[in-house]
């Protein structure tokens, strides 16, 4: 059967491949698209209609109104234009030919006569973003028409907190791990094997295992809720993987390189900072992206070691709090979530090239 598949068949496969892959990509993209669209829709619209209604679609549009007799008995069948309907039918909307009848105002006995038309809900607003970013008060029109004043959550502060947490938590472990990886790869010392085995074993230790004792130590030392405390926590949790990754990269450098540098009287520190670091830039870049994304997106570690005091709260925490405290404020949730996605997405797309290259050099060969 497969023998029949000659060259002609391959082009056909390509067409199928493109189609299947295209469908997968659309499925993959839809959730994010939904968030993006929802985040620029007014609060009332988000709660009333799905985000996909911003695309042109067939929807019921009211073309005229019917006024029934004011004292129509709703418990009996109701006669409209010579046909009879029940109250329940009219509540849900009942189709009659190509028209639909639905109560406009049940008490006033007015009915909407609707027809299917092409339409799209195209109300867009940036107010959600303003509310989320600024700490000011905003008036929001609720679905039922009342106006509610609410306090913006001031994501600006948590954005800066996130920066203060993420950048050192990315650079410090990479620095420490690279030094260690260099020593493991090229220096001889007592205890090298045992240290290395322990680090590799720690690679897969679930971080939950460490949380209780660290929390106790931090409470004793007063490190809870401080930047320094969370830097150290992220550093320790990231170290095994980064050390292993950098070891793979550094140990593959040619040996002659070191020998000639030693001949010239270079110290280990000089070799490391002048030779190893520049040569490992692709590996450093890709592991940095990993650590950056992981720390930026982390929720558990910040939840436990930083807590939710506004002075130190990070983005993921403030969104999670929004989910909890204002579960129905979709307009705030969506825009906050989108803001928190922007930085990692920008970093990822800017450094994508390094990412793949570094992975190629590191984990595939290793």
């Amino acid at each position, binding site marked *: 059967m497969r023998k029949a598949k000659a060259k002609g068949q391959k082009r056909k496969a390509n067409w199928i491949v493109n189609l299947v892959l295209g469908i*997968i990509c659309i499925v993959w*993209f839809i959730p994010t698209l939904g968030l993006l669209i929802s985040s620029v829709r007014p609060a009332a619209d988000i709660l009333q209609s799905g985000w996909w209604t911003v695309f042109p679609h067939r929807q019921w549009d009211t073309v005229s109104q019917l006024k029934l007799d004011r004292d129509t008995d709703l418990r009996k069948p109701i006669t409209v234009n010579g046909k009879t309907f029940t109250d329940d039918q009219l509540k849900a909307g009942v189709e009659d030919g190509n028209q639909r009848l639905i109560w406009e105002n049940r008490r006033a006995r007015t009915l909407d006569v609707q027809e299917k038309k092409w339409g799209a809900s195209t109300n867009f607003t940036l107010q959600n973003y303003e509310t989320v970013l600024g700490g000011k008060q905003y008036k929001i029109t609720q679905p039922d028409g009342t106006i509610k004043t609410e306090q913006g959550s001031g994501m600006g502060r948590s954005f800066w907190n996130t920066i203060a947490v993420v950048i050192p938590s990315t650079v*410090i472990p990479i620095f420490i791990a690279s030094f260690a990886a260099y020593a493991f790869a090229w220096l001889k010392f007592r205890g090298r094997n045992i240290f290395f085995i322990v680090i590799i074993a720690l690679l897969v230790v679930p971080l939950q295992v460490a949380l209780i004792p660290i929390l106790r130590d931090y409470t004793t030392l007063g490190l809870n809720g401080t930047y320094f405390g969370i830097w150290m926590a992220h550093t320790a949790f990231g170290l095994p993987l980064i050390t292993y990754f950098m070891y793979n990269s550094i140990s593959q450098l040619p040996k002659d390189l070191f020998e000639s540098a030693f001949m010239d009287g270079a110290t280990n520190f000089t070799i490391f900072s002048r030779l190893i670091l520049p040569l490992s830039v692709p590996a450093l870049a890709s592991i940095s992206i990993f650590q950056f994304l992981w720390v930026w*997106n982390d929720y558990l570690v910040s939840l436990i070691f930083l807590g939710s005091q506004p002075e130190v709260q990070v983005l993921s925490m403030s969104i999670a709090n929004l989910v909890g405290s204002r579960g129905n404020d979709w307009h705030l949730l969506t825009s906050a979530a989108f803001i928190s996605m922007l930085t990692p997405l920008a970093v990822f797309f800017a450094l994508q090239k390094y990412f793949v290259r570094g*992975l190629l050099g590191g984990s595939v060969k290793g």
Partner: protein
Amino acid sequence: MDVSKTMDTRSNQRFTPKVILLSILVPLLNLGLHTLIFLFFRGSDLPPMVNALLAVIWGLAGIYSIYFSLNWVVEQYPDKWKDRVIPYVFVGPAVLLLGWLLFLPTLRTLYLSFFNADSTQFVGFANFAAVFTDRLLVTALRNNLMWVVFGTLACVILGLLIAVLADRSSFERLAKAVVFMPMAISFVAAGVIWKFIYYYQPGADQIGLLNAIIVNMGFQPQGWLSMVQPWNNLFLIVILVWMQTGFAMVIFSAAIKGIPEDMLEAARMDGAGEIRIFFKIMLPVISSTVLAVTTTIIVFTLKIFDVVMIMTGGQYGTEVVATEFYRQLFMYQNAGYGSTLAIVLLIAVIPVIILNVRQLKKGGSL
């Protein structure tokens, strides 16, 4: 201790009092300086942005200056000692941090797991017996198993499929970027995104995509995350698959590109179909990569926390070990149960640890 043979004449061969003094002073100075800076930050009321920038500068400059100053001290040592001590300066910070924040805590957690809720009384294996009989905790273990099996399988299979398809499609870069993108999104933001997919409300008007689809097809809307237990876990697992498949895909894609083209060409010449080539040639060649990715995702799914916490808070029968751990520890203040759950996670990854170390031994790193 035979120093005289190997010495060159550049530096002194004995410890002078000055060097000894320096070796004590420099670490102390480092400690003092950073404690002062730490105290400054803890008490500061600077605007968030300034605070963040200063903290970042402290983190980066601090880590560099520690290594630089320690290295400088060791450079003053007699040559023989220099070579002996330098490796420990390089690996020291990594080993100390991992020891303090990961290795010792693991042992301490193991110790705590034999004690009662407030760690005052030894209870032997009672906590373990409780964990494996308590209904909630057993559900958590079952759910974790579902996560590991279905989550990992789906990620690996989809990742392979997309990597192979992308390799032959005409929009490879775009497809890979789309599938990889969710990796850059936090679980918290992903939670918000997926609420728009799973959102449930009674009636015909739905704002959740999945319910809108099935209502359109004439079915009743479903509470995807609350009803239909235990299958609601699968809907949570879909979120993980959506986020992690990109990781598997990127690495598989790199591995597939590493397969020599003539090998595939030869198989095609012999009349092998594409499907057969995939199973008989590609899969065996990249098997070690598949194994590495599979173990990474298994470990990841074992620790799964954020998705469940954000989407359901572990209600409706969706609790996993990590969320139960969090609940035991912070809501019920039961350090005994909490530690035991963490240790259960650890036991579950021990096979992976052994596999890792064995792989290293094979590779000659030990």
